[in-house]
């Protein structure tokens, strides 16, 4: 260690953790009511930020060192100040992206987005036409999503796609890639449908942990094919974990050796809900992880002080439990995706949606099956809980015989829009 002659001392008062990547739900209003939507989007929340307030938040983000903001919903473009927020962020040098179902994106809106400073848009496409329309609960949704890709691309916005993977659409995976490739996407993100929000109501839709034994290698093979095509395929934060394909899945380049390094919620990632609630990650459960509200507090104060934001910054293997606590990769992995683990077992630190775990159990001739234990309450970003049943690897799969109609079964009345 080199000792300088005259050390300029500076009190370390700033954390190295910064909200560099922010996902901002601008409104919960949506023109879809997707069957797997974690936020149960459709109707705007009470007390959503006005355009003026949202533009002010954009300034706070830039001041906090945010480099990228992805606007989501609901549908972000249904917020009256959508383009104003894009402009405000872009003007401060923040890269702005959009995740969208695409239904309302017209050629004119795409041009306006580009002019406002939107650099990249990801259209959610969850399967071929029949599958996608069923998951999105709207006939014609697939065609609308493809048209949105065309409009965005024509406007000069880089287009990517994102796909939720579950039992209702996994058969479409390779065929869907060909469709998206032909559309000119530059990136494709695949994530598992976690039992969050509406997906928590549809148990038959969900993957069972042993499904990862075949699904993850398929994704890895697709990634190799996409790389050859010049398309960046990246797994979402809840897909993978230390199987033999881990470095292929997580690396950008052919020779890179990247791997999962633990949940980054509250470290370099932040989520904002449309009413100003701040979380460490946009998908974290509202009831457990909101650290403050931008209507009442400064963003910097919430980021620095709220336990719901800081809990993950010094986390160690001591926070893990169950299989994850004893896993060979525990220290590097830290239990995988927090919101996914919480959505399954009611708290983070033990994640059955893990490729290495499924492989380890399979070597012993067993597997884990998720069995619903408690139902979700029916609020945005909520979850029920599951029991884990260990059973022989070749045991019958009860869910495999469920008819397709069961995939869209809802046994609770939807939440009504608030009365103005």
């Amino acid at each position, binding site marked *: 260690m080199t000792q*300088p002659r*005259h050390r300029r001392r500076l009190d*370390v008062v700033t954390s190295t953790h910064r909200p*560099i990547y922010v996902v901002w739900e601008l409104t919960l209003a949506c023109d879809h009511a997707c069957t797997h939507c974690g936020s149960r989007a459709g109707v705007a929340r009470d007390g959503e930020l006005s355009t003026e307030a949202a533009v002010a938040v954009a300034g706070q983000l830039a001041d906090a060192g945010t480099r990228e903001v*992805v606007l989501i919903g609901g549908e972000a473009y249904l917020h009256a100040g959508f383009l104003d927020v894009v402009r405000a962020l872009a003007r401060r040098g923040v890269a702005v992206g959009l995740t969208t179902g695409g239904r309302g994106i017209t050629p004119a809106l795409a041009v306006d987005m580009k002019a406002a400073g939107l650099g990249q848009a990801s259209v959610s496409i969850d399967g071929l036409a029949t599958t996608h329309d069923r998951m999105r609960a709207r006939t014609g949704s697939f065609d609308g999503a493809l048209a949105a890709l065309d409009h965005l691309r024509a406007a000069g916005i880089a287009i990517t796609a994102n796909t939720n993977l579950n039992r209702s659409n996994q058969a479409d995976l390779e065929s869907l890639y060909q469709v998206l490739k032909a559309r000119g996407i530059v990136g494709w993100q695949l994530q598992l449908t976690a039992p969050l929000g509406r997906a928590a109501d549809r148990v038959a839709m969900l993957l069972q942990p042993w499904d990862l034994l075949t699904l993850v290698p398929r994704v890895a093979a697709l990634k190799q094919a996409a790389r050859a095509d010049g398309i960046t395929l*990246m797994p979402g934060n809840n897909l993978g974990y230390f*199987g*033999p394909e881990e470095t292929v899945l997580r690396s950008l380049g052919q020779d*890179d*050796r990247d791997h999962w390094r633990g949940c980054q919620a509250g470290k370099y990632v932040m989520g904002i809900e449309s009413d100003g609630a701040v979380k460490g990650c946009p998908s974290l459960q509202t009831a457990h992880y909101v650290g403050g509200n931008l209507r009442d507090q400064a963003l910097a104060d919430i980021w620095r002080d709220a336990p719901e934001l800081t809990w993950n910054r010094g986390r160690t293997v001591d926070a893990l439990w169950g299989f994850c606590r004893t896993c060979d990769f525990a220290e590097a992995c830290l239990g995988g995706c927090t919101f996914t683990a919480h959505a399954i077992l009611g708290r983070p630190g033990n994640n059955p949606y893990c490729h290495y775990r499924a492989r380890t159990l399979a070597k012993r001739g067993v597997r884990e099956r998720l069995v619903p234990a408690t139902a979700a309450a029916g609020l945005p970003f909520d979850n029920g809980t599951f029991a884990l049943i260990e059973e022989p690897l070749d045991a019958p799969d009860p869910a495999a015989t469920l008819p397709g109609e069961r995939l869209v079964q809802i046994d609770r009345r939807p939440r009504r829009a608030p009365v103005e």
Partner: protein
Amino acid sequence: MHLHACSRCDGLIPTGRPSCPHCDGPAPRRRPLGWLWRGACAGGAMMTLMACYGMIARPMGPNQGYDRDGDGVGEAVDCDDTRPDVYPGAADLDGDGVDQNCDGVDGWRDPDAPPPPAVAAEPPEPSAAPAIATDPPPPPAGSPPAIAVDPP
């Protein structure tokens, strides 16, 4: 955490395991090289931070390259783009053996002090397992000299 690359399959092997958990291939008998650790931990998670919302990694700006560790500074400027706590301007704890702020020394360097001597990267050893049979990629032009550090 140290992770070795398996010489038989593409899998990773945690330190302390006698064999690869995926193919039962033998684990290397020594700690991975500093560059291997960096290569094996090059921020894959950070590349996918936005991935749940479908964005792709992009260069951080002109001549900055990709930000592999997610600290907001691209690899051409960041002196260790595998560690999100290391980037120009970061708080640099004195005495922890890590140059977090990329000024060439642990702690804060007196701007009037002479430049620190270069620290050579850890050389490969003949007995090292051929886990990744290539040299680490050369640093981007203009980047500071590589400093091999042990992971925390």
